[in-house]
């Protein structure tokens, strides 16, 4: 028995070592950086709860990089450079993000960082990237702390603080009968960012916020929450900051239990993902800020982006368009600085005038709120789900100075 065990042990160990070796060979990067390569680090959740966003980001960045490399990369002081992105998995955890960023900075010696999403991850790595003077382009919904006193961090995603006032103004103009709401979000930093931004905007527009509800990420039963909501019967449910899977179940259960009001999501929900889970009839008429290839409001460049993405990956990821531009912005900064020095690139990005993105004209701003112009402002879509499709109605311009914060957690 013992001998058999040992035999199997050796078998198992050999198999394990072989497997590990195979992985290593298959996935090890080209160690030697070619003289003409600019290394960019990307740390995103490729596994774990945020995998949908992380994989979308990875795909979008690769797509943008391929396009740039095909066009010849950039030329700096007569020398041509191509880009290479190194992707790391941060498992949607702050502590793992630190390890990933350390590896990118100190072992891979990347020159720039794009992509960390998730407030915990960004806050955990900022002490390192700032000390290393590493230009980092992030996307998160976190509060103003994420940019205040940060010299090298840029946010290339418009958080609800800025776009919610314009978005909800559109809602108010087109649907003046919507006067009361309850906000629902995941109980994480993203959810809190959306709650505060959306509720401040609605409050400033004279709508009445009846309450804010939170759920644990990964929850599948929202019946207790819907019971609470039904007892107050708001005109609409504002669901910004709810991830797609949870949002779908929430919609399904709210309709099933008899909620008749409108549903508004200040985020992106892809109908082809949402419909089968929530029920197609339940998602008709949801107003949201996601974008797809269809509708009168979609910019031309965005349409091209959707064609390219689908040609390369064969599917649609509703989060990817938000990330795609990050790479282009960095390249524009490098071109403008005509240098790879991170401080020069930082200055160049800060001084960029209005520039084109797939979303339309964009610019940097936010001095009043953050103390620096490190916040991207670009048009935000207003879309509606109609006949199982996401139709982008128009693009609205986010507001640089948001309404005063009401600190929604202190209010009942």
């Amino acid at each position, binding site marked *: 028995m013992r001998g058999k065990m040992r035999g199997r042990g050796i078998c198992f160990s050999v198999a394990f070592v072989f497997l590990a070796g195979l992985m290593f060979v298959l996935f090890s990067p080209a160690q030697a950086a070619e003289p003409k390569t600019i290394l960019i680090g990307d740390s995103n959740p490729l596994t774990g709860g945020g995998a949908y966003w992380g994989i979308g980001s990875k795909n979008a960045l690769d797509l943008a990089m391929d396009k740039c490399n095909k066009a010849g990369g950039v030329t700096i002081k007569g020398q041509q450079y191509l880009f290479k992105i190194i992707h790391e998995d941060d498992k949607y955890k702050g502590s793992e993000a630190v390890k990933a960023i350390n590896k990118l900075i100190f072992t891979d010696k990347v020159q720039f960082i794009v992509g960390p999403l998730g407030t915990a991850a960004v806050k955990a790595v900022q*002490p390192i990237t700032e000390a290393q003077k590493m230009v980092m382009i992030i996307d998160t919904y976190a509060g103003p*702390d994420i940019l205040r006193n940060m010299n090298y961090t840029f946010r290339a995603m418009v958080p609800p603080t800025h776009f919610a006032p314009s978005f909800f103004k559109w809602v108010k103009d087109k649907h003046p009968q919507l006067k009361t709401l309850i906000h629902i979000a995941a109980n994480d930093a993203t959810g*809190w960012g959306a709650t505060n931004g959306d509720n401040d905007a609605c409050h400033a527009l004279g709508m009445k916020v009846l309450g804010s509800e939170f759920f644990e990420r990964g929850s599948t039963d929202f019946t207790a929450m819907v019971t609470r909501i039904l007892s107050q019967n708001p005109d609409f449910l504002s669901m910004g900051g709810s991830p797609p899977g949870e949002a779908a179940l929430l919609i399904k259960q709210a309709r099933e239990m008899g909620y008749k009001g409108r549903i508004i999501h200040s985020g992106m929900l892809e109908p082809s993902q949402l419909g089968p889970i929530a029920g197609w009839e339940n998602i008709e008429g949801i107003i949201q800020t996601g974008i797809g290839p269809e509708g009168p409001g979609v910019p031309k460049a965005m349409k091209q982006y959707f064609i390219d993405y689908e040609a390369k990956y064969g599917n649609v990821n509703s989060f990817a368009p938000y990330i795609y531009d990050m790479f282009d912005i960095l390249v524009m900064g490098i071109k403008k600085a005509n240098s790879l020095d991170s401080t020069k690139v930082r200055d160049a990005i800060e001084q960029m005038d209005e520039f084109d993105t797939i979303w339309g004209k964009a610019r940097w701003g936010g001095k009043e709120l953050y103390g620096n112009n490190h916040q991207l402002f670009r048009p935000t879509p207003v879309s509606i789900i109609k006949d199982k499709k996401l139709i982008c109605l128009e693009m609205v311009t986010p507001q640089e100075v948001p309404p005063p914060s009401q600190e929604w957690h202190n209010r009942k």
Partner: protein
Amino acid sequence: MSNPLKIFTSLGALAAMLMLPWVITDPRYRDLIITMGIYFILASGLRLIMSVGQVSFAQAAFWGIGAYSSAILVMKAGLSFWLSLPLSGIISAFIALLIGYPCLRLKGPYFFIITMSFGEVARLVFTSWIDLFGGTNGISGIPAPDPITISGVFSISFPPRGVEFYYLLMLLIIVSFFVMYRIERSHFGKACGAIREFDDLAASLGINIMRHSIILFVVGCFFAGIAGSFYAHYMTYIGPGYFSFHESLLFLIIAVIGGTESIFGIIIGAVLLTILPEFTREAKQFESIIYGAFVLVVLLFMPSGIWGMLKKIFRIKPLSKSYI
């Protein structure tokens, strides 16, 4: 400590620890070593309560309690780090006393579920009490420890992620190692081994099982709190996600993979399980599969952990004669 060989080994280990930053200068690897050190303190604290046969799944919660206490004491109450470091250990220990007293009557899986529930309660409190704990955004901008200055002679300051943190952590490790080693060697430690193996017999011999369990639990959580305090000021940012049930599981894996028989097993566990994910990082999504396979292989073929296997191969005589 009469054995000259032992003194020699200890001095060697100490010298190696002091010299390490000169050999490993890469900040990435220094950060990993610090992570190992923190995991070592946490897992060895967990090992204490495991020595009476109980497994706590709340170790990460006590780690978090220490981290949050220290951050709040320094940032809101304005205390010095050097005061908040022991204080956060004491706060953790005090909560462990309150929780441990009723809960340690429970055995096996019942203790598992009650400690797991406590861990969840702690995490939910960190998440929900926004004014004090910052909610899901956590607490950022936690200051570095105050510089130690002896006027005119020397001054040690703590730059972000500097090597000074390494030496501070080594000091904490040496203290915790020494305390745990003494517990293990004492009459008290031997009684704990007896409780684990034959609790009825131990009780009939007049060993107070409850008292022993409580003391071990409280000491383990004290060091978890200390580790938390260090972690908060080293990372400068903490959030509720850091102290979840999954981290408690990680410490348990470290302890069992390394081998709970000896404190050296915990060292091996902490080192291996910190290095392995870095080594297999290139495998991207396959990483977790390799990790899981590694855990399985060790559990299946090294019943008393890696230390147990090394001991068998090299015929290492036990340093202590106790069971833990």
